[in-house]
Structure formats: structure tokens, C-alpha cells
């Protein structure tokens, strides 16, 4: 491995290290890594929030000149 330019040397390590073997979720025949389960659960949560959270009302504006 040869570093040849300054562009190649900027630090890019992780703050949270995910580089260890995954923990797996087993439920009957179903198996998925914890990370994947987190993503699926987050999807459901964000979907529920997107529906439930109120959307800001538009600012009242003067009547537009047409």
C-alpha cells in the first residue's frame, strides 16, 4: 500500500466502530443482523412519525398580485 499524495492521507476513521462481527437476531427460521433489524425498525418508526407529526402551516401571505 503506497500513499502517493496528500489527498490520500486525510483521516477517515470511524467514531463508532462497527468493524466487529455482527450480532444476529434469530427468530424461528428468520435471521438478520442487528444492524439490518435496526434499519427496518427505523423505517417503520420514521413512517409512523411522518404520518403522525403535524406539518407546519404555510405562513400567512398577502393576497398575491396575479
Amino acid at each position, binding site marked *: 500500500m503506497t500513499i502517493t499524495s496528500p489527498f490520500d492521507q486525510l483521516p*477517515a476513521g470511524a467514531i463508532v466502530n462497527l468493524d466487529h462481527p455482527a450480532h444476529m437476531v434469530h427468530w424461528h427460521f428468520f435471521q438478520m443482523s442487528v444492524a439490518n433489524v435496526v*434499519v427496518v425498525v427505523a*423505517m417503520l418508526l420514521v413512517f409512523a412519525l*411522518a404520518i403522525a407529526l403535524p406539518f407546519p402551516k*404555510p405562513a400567512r401571505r398577502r*393576497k398575491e398580485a396575479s
Partner: protein
Amino acid sequence: MSSSPLLRKAQSDVSRQGAGVGALTQESRPSPYQPAYLRSWIYVFGLATAAALAVVVVSGVILSLKGPEWWQDAQLGHFFNSIHLWSVELAFFFMVIHLWGKYWMAAWRGGRARVWMTGAIALLVAIPAAFTGYLSQQSFDAQWVSLHAKDALNSIGVGAFFNATNFGQMYNYHVLLLPVALTTIAVAHIALVRRHGAVPPFERSVRVQQLPDGDAVSVGARDEG
């Protein structure tokens, strides 16, 4: 038909502004009104998906500037590799939520079947695009996945042509063929959405009426046919 002058103006705006780039400068302000049924956070996920795909493409272009060794060996290359990976995760994340929202709104109504279909095809094309990206990493996981994927592809006869263990071929599908296909389908999808507009609620048509105080409300007129 509604006789609201603002509604007529909006209709005229839409019909004037074809696909021309010049139209961009005419819409530097938000639309003059917005129907009440658009006031939900679920509507941002189409945009979020498109934005995430744009980040995927840009980070992918940067990765392809320096080639495979860069994203494996150099720290900056690895950083862009990380952006590319996480923007793909975001793209799928938002795409699935967008899909769920559109399904529960039955967004194919009112002549919008092609909008749904192009969106569904985009998702189906995004999956092999992501899969070939998996393989292009040339990592241990790429080896493991390709070893298992080849069995499925071989069983349907596709493996003789589309060889999951041929990195050169998979890389070319990933950086050229599938992005072109996905972008084309996504653009068609967005163009169709633009043409048809957002689907209205089940029971009412899209009539909107400007109130004197600047707000807009939906008014009922006809049921869905």
C-alpha cells in the same frame, strides 16, 4: 370547474412551464397555495429518495475517478466509499417509506398507474444496482455474496451471461449500465408525477380555493370514479 382566479393562474402556470430549464427561474418562490392534503411529512420522502440517489451518483463518480485501490487503500478514498455506502442505505430507506406512503394513498388513482409502475420498476432496478455495488467492493463480503448469488443466477440460466463472480463485468454493470437504467426510469417517474400531480384524497377532487387571508383549503366537488 372552479372559477377561482388563483386556481386558473396555477393551471396556466403548469401548462406554460413545460420541461424547459427557463421555467426554473419563474419559480423562485413557493407555489401560491398548497392544498391541505399535501400537508404531511410523508410527501418529502420522494424528494429525499431523489436527493439520496444524487449523492450516490456524485460519490460514485468520485470513487470511479481513482479506481478500486483508492477506495480500499487510501483514507480519503475510503471516506468517499463510506459516503457512497451510507447514501445508498439512505436511498433505500427513503424509497421504501415513500413506497409505503404511496401504497396507502393508493397513488395510482386518477390515471396515475404509470407513475406507480415506473416507481416500482425503479425499486426493482435499484436492487441489482446495489447488489453489483456489493460485489464491486472486492471485499471478503463481496466474495461470500457472489458465491451464494451465483447459485440463484445459474439456476435460471442467467449466470452463464451475468457472472456474479466476474468482477470486471459486475463493476461495469454497477458504474454504467444500471445507473443509466435507474436514472432513466427515475426521471420518467418524476416527469410523470409532474404531469399528473399528487394524487388527491379518496373522496374528494383536487379543488382548492384561496381564502382572503392567504390560506388555501380543499373543497369537495366530486367522488373518485
